[in-house]
């Protein structure tokens, strides 16, 4: 059920668990259960980013339930975490008013945001309330470059992902004997896609690649036939797309329809659907061999395997929004545990000092520098036979890269 929850939510399970803990804790603290610790979950639950927002909420709630089931925050007498869900509706103005509401409801921290423009607005508002804010995705680097000491981003930003994506591309290309020399860029014309195209124009020539076509398009684009034909005419070795999920799927379907097949690869950086499990599963023929440099978990960790099993049992899609929010909640809970306090300033200090590594992401221990987790890094994925596989770096890989892709058969 995907009901939009606007009020405080406390699952039946956590309520029962809380009651149980209260009974057990009775001799210790004279019958008083510790007050629950409220965490704001801010996501775009409705509107065109609803898929990403709802995935994020599921991930955060899954981690929260596990933490509560394991006894809550022990340094605060086993206090339970309680989610207060807020819908940013894909509008920065709504994100700001929801931050005010969350502050009014007494949350000790906020996590989420997903889209960069929502995160930029929400974090600034949270700073006015002195509230610690943990960003789940929000890749624009300005988010952690405004001197706001309450803002922490667990995942890598735009600059880091692009740098790693290009380094990994060069490594893959060199290992294969440099088959890729020319590139076509297809990007959406908003801040995300245009920014990516600009960055690629700066970096690719220096790495020995020639850009033969750059095509921007609006979101949503109703038809990709013209774009497909222009790409086909440019005969690129590589296609680098940067656009949102719906458009990415339509683009890939149109490429297949118009027999657009680059000689070497479709290599996305933060590609809209390029590491999206349902896209891979529903269109195995079209999605096969598509590569992406994006947020993704380390599938080999025992914690990741347990996580993936729970996701499968719930029949959820295994996507990076789910993975990141699950991890961010664990980092946040660890900080509350160490702070042994719900004081906002103490919590901010505890997050800043975080060295937590028990997450499903392929990151080292967290190390926040000016709010950015410098231990974070993206990975390369490739869709192989309907499944998103991690192919690079080797330490986290679940499959070997297919690069260049086999000629059309």
């Amino acid at each position, binding site marked *: 059920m995907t009901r939009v929850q606007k009020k405080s939510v406390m699952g039946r399970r956590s309520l029962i668990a809380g009651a149980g803990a209260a009974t057990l804790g009775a001799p210790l603290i004279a019958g008083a259960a510790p007050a629950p610790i409220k965490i704001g979950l801010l996501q775009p639950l409705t509107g065109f980013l609803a898929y990403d927002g709802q995935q994020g909420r599921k991930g955060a709630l899954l981690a929260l339930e596990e933490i509560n089931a394991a006894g809550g925050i022990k340094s605060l007498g086993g206090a339970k975490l309680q989610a207060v869900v807020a819908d940013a509706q894909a509008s920065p103005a709504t994100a700001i008013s929801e931050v005010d509401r969350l502050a009014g409801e007494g949350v000790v921290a906020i996590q989420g945001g997903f889209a960069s423009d929502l995160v930029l607005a929400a974090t600034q508002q949270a700073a006015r309330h002195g509230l610690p804010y943990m960003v789940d995705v929000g890749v624009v680097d300005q988010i952690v470059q405004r001197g706001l000491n309450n803002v922490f981003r667990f995942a890598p930003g735009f600059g880091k992902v692009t740098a790693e994506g290009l380094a990994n591309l060069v490594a893959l290309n060199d290992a294969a004997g440099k088959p890729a020399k020319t590139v076509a860029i297809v990007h959406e014309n908003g801040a995300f896609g245009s920014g990516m195209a600009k960055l690629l124009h700066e970096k690719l020539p220096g790495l020995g690649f020639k850009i033969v076509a750059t095509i921007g398009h609006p979101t*949503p684009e109703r038809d990709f036939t013209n774009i497909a034909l222009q790409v086909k005419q440019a005969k690129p070795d590589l296609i680098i797309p940067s656009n949102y999920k719906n458009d990415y799927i339509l683009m890939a379907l149109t490429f297949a329809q118009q027999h657009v097949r680059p000689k070497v690869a479709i290599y996305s950086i933060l590609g809209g659907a390029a590491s999206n499990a349902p896209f891979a599963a529903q269109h195995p023929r079209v999605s096969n061999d598509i590569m992406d440099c994006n947020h993704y978990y380390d599938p080999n960790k025992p914690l990741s395997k347990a996580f993936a099993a729970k996701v499968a049992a719930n029949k959820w899609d295994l996507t990076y929004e789910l993975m990141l929010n699950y991890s961010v909640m664990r980092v946040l809970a660890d900080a509350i545990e160490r702070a042994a306090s719900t004081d906002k300033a103490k919590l901010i200090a505890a997050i800043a000092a975080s060295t937590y590594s028990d997450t499903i992401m392929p990151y080292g221990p967290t190390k926040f520098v000016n709010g950015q987790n410098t231990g974070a890094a993206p990975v390369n994925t490739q869709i192989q036979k309907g499944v998103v596989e991690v192919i690079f770096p080797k330490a986290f890989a679940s499959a070997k890269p297919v690069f260049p892709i086999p000629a059309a058969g």
Partner: protein
Amino acid sequence: MSTALLLPALIGGLANGAVYALVALGLTLVYGVLHIINFAHGSLLMLALYAAWILWAAMGVSPYVALPVLVPLFFVLGYGLQRWVIGPAGHGRETNVLLVTLGLSIVIDNLALAVFGPSTRTTSIPLATRTIDLGVMYLPLPKLIAFAAALVLSGLLWLLLTRTDLGRAIRAVARESDAARLVGIRVTHIHAATFGIGTASVAAAACLLLPSFYVSPDAGYAFVLVAFTTVVMGGMGSFPGALLAGLVIGVIESLSGLWFGPSLAPVGIYAVFALVLLFRPTGLFGARA
């Protein structure tokens, strides 16, 4: 580079234009005849896309086979909406009707989000992946079917409006509803039937669109603005006008996308739109006031 792509851009533009015309057919009836600015048009399109998708996902029914099932179903839905929701809540005032349809769109969008979830759904019927090799491009079969269907449907609707008693009644109500009532036409019934036909056309458009598009709770918005533009450019209430305007818009969008880049394609549409209105204020096929 543009000469080799000119022909495919023209063909592609016509194919897309046919889809715009299909989506606009229902709107031109409701907007042009009933003077209802139906903000729920995109949401009804999305709902019909889901209906077609569900039939495919649950029972393997191709959207083309689903068309004769969904068209009467959506007629009933549209009839009911106008008769028991939009009509009574509007109290005959256009501003009220505007807000009611806006409210309806919000209700439908969020119901879809709650029931279907926010995922992007696509069909994969064998027919949809078929293409016709034209040498310069591969024309997807669904687009050819949509093109033919747009011609047939606009013709059928034109016949319905000009040659049947229902059509005459609809035009009479549109022209002078009090006089129509005096000669014994049941005005509320005709309003509801008109809205029903408009909604049924949306269902037909959805069945023809789904094989080459996707559905998500916000899928309808990709077509709303262009559908309103098509209706006004073609002349309010004119089916041949909507068809021609849809095709013109498709071709202009495609060519301006080719020459100025896809980001500027909408600029081409609205430049031509402004020109048309400058010289023919009632649209291409609009009746003189």
